[in-house]
């Protein structure tokens, strides 16, 4: 693993996702770059519509038309995967990159047993006999913590509870031992007590299998619990990206600060939670300059004029003019 860690497993460079509409093109993900190291958990947070799920969909090559990758590159192990023909990308999906979706209740086909769905996925990607695949499927169910997997493998999805179904979905994502899992809000649809179990499970499995995870969520708690690094997205751009501890404890971007302020803290006096005034702009009306500027309390001249690009500040990269010394000096 140490030898590999020089080269990132996944590299996203200047990714741009667009939706052509009758009233012009909407830019849903605008020029974002980040990378994921082998075995690393990258959390991606942001409000609904910030572009985090679309980024995930772009990586697994399943953007819903008419959405499309309009610019930039996605590289897996140094190989471009964003421009592969459907059939080639299909062989990467499930094998190299697994996916976990939000709603375990609807992610499984109700008409087939979980065993059939598991073996089908295994046989698609791995060269195995039916009985080997079944043995592997039972092993996977065991791995994700489903009791009595030999019996449960022949059950239908509706015979599992929501949390158990999400475990099955995770087992399905792990079928071919992928190196990256894109998990899109894997705990959002679950009860809080189950959420913790699923998060623990994802953490444990990734450690055991050395799988990297891109964990898309709007739950900062989940990120703090699970991620190594975190990317904060706002209106299709990355506001701040860095090690999870730095971002949570020493948030640099005013938006991240606002986000952290809106999380209740245990132990403190029950003060009123900080909130960010206003709402994230719609894609049709993204303001000039920094997209966050109308809501920002620290706005100054360049913010309404120019779009900031992420610059390294300490351990994190921040897209904010506050940290650009020349702009700052010029304003003062």
């Amino acid at each position, binding site marked *: 693993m140490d030898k590999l860690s020089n080269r990132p497993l996944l590299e996203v460079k200047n990714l741009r996702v667009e939706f052509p509409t009758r009233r012009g093109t909407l830019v849903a993900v605008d020029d974002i770059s980040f990378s994921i190291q082998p075995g690393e958990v990258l959390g991606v947070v942001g409000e609904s519509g910030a572009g985090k799920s679309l980024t995930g969909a772009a990586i*697994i090559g399943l953007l819903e038309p008419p959405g499309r990758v309009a610019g930039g590159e996605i590289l897996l192990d140094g190989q471009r995967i964003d421009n592969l023909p459907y059939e080639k990308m299909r062989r990467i*999906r499930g094998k190299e990159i697994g996916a976990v979706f939000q709603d375990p209740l609807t*992610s499984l086909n109700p*008409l087939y047993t979980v065993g059939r769905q598991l073996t089908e*996925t295994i046989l698609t990607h791995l060269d195995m006999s039916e009985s080997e695949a079944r043995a592997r499927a039972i092993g996977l169910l065991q791995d994700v913590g489903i009791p009595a997997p030999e019996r449960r493998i022949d059950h239908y999805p*509706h*015979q599992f*509870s929501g949390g158990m179904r999400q475990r099955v979905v995770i087992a*399905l994502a792990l079928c071919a031992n992928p190196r990256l899992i894109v998990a899109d809000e894997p705990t959002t649809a679950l009860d809080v007590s189950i959420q913790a179990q699923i998060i623990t499970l994802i953490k444990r499995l990734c450690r055991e299998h050395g799988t990297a995870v891109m964990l898309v969520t709007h739950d900062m708690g989940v990120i703090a619990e699970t991620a190594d690094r975190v990317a904060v997205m706002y209106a299709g751009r990355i506001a701040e990206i860095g090690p999870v501890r730095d971002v949570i404890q020493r948030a640099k971007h005013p938006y991240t600060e606002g986000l952290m302020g809106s999380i209740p803290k245990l132990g403190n006096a029950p003060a009123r939670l900080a909130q960010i005034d206003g709402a994230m702009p719609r894609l049709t009306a993204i303001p000039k300059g920094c997209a966050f500027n109308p809501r920002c309390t620290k706005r100054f001249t360049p913010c309404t004029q120019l779009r900031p690009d992420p610059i390294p500040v300490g351990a994190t990269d921040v897209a904010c003019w506050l940290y650009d010394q020349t702009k700052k000096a010029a304003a003062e």
Partner: protein
Amino acid sequence: MVAFIIRRLLQAVLVMMAVGFVAFSLFAYVGDPVAIMLGQDFTEEARMRLVRDLGLDQPFFVQYFNFLVKAAQGEFGISYRLARPVSDLLMERLPATLELSLCAALLALLVGVPMGVYTGLNRDSFLSRLMLTVSLVGVSLPTFLIGILLILVFSVLLGWLPSFGRGTTVALGWWTTGFLTPTGLRALILPSITLALFQLTLIMRLVRSEMLEVLRTDYIKFARARGLSNRAINFGHALKNTLVPVITITGLQLGGIIAFAIVTETVFQWPGMGFLFIQSVSAADVPVMAAYLILIAFFFVLINLVVDLLYYAVDPRLRVDRGAAGGH
């Protein structure tokens, strides 16, 4: 499962009794069998005897009960028009209608389902648009017109296919079949197409809209994310999930095909039950009408039962005892 079948069978019995009541009412309200059977000259004594022989002097419910008992034994009396037992008449005609209906149903399914899948998967292709446009014709043109047009083109103008009748048939016991002779098979083509066309377009449109619906679901997206082949996704996952509604409609349509073969049989002078029924209506041949009514109702009930059982075969969610399923 067994309880379910028993419940359905009881319901079926109730339905049949209700239909029997309607059929029985035909006797009471459509014409007077005594007057028909006696003709012009009769004595009061002869009339009384006939009334007694027919059981018409008995209370209404006793008559109804007797009718049901006889009907259950396949006895529907004597045709007024042909003076032969109604059950014999129907049995002679049954194979013709069932063979025609079977061909039409198979044609509708074997062509309609693939067309529906194709148009669902390739929503914007030229061929899909063409199929949808042409299918409008199938839905909107009345059956008799289609039949007459087909006769005009293929029998009158081109002279390729016969315009009426069943051709030569072969008797297998009491069943006469047209499947075993070239003329019999040729004679089946036009009526089958006529009868199938409406159902075919209906099935195609149904499968198409169900496919579009299913392809949008999360489990199809997830199946794609698992890297399954298109073939496995479209046919293994998507098509199977469209089956429940398709089975429902197809089942109902099959009953409809048998019942509404009346028009097609009349157009093609097809010697089936529908043609017999039309002739009986014009002659006010009540026993035949009543028996036809009951027989058709029986087919509907039977098909519905089969449809319900097919649900069980397709959808595992129905198979499991209630309560065993965890968390919904």
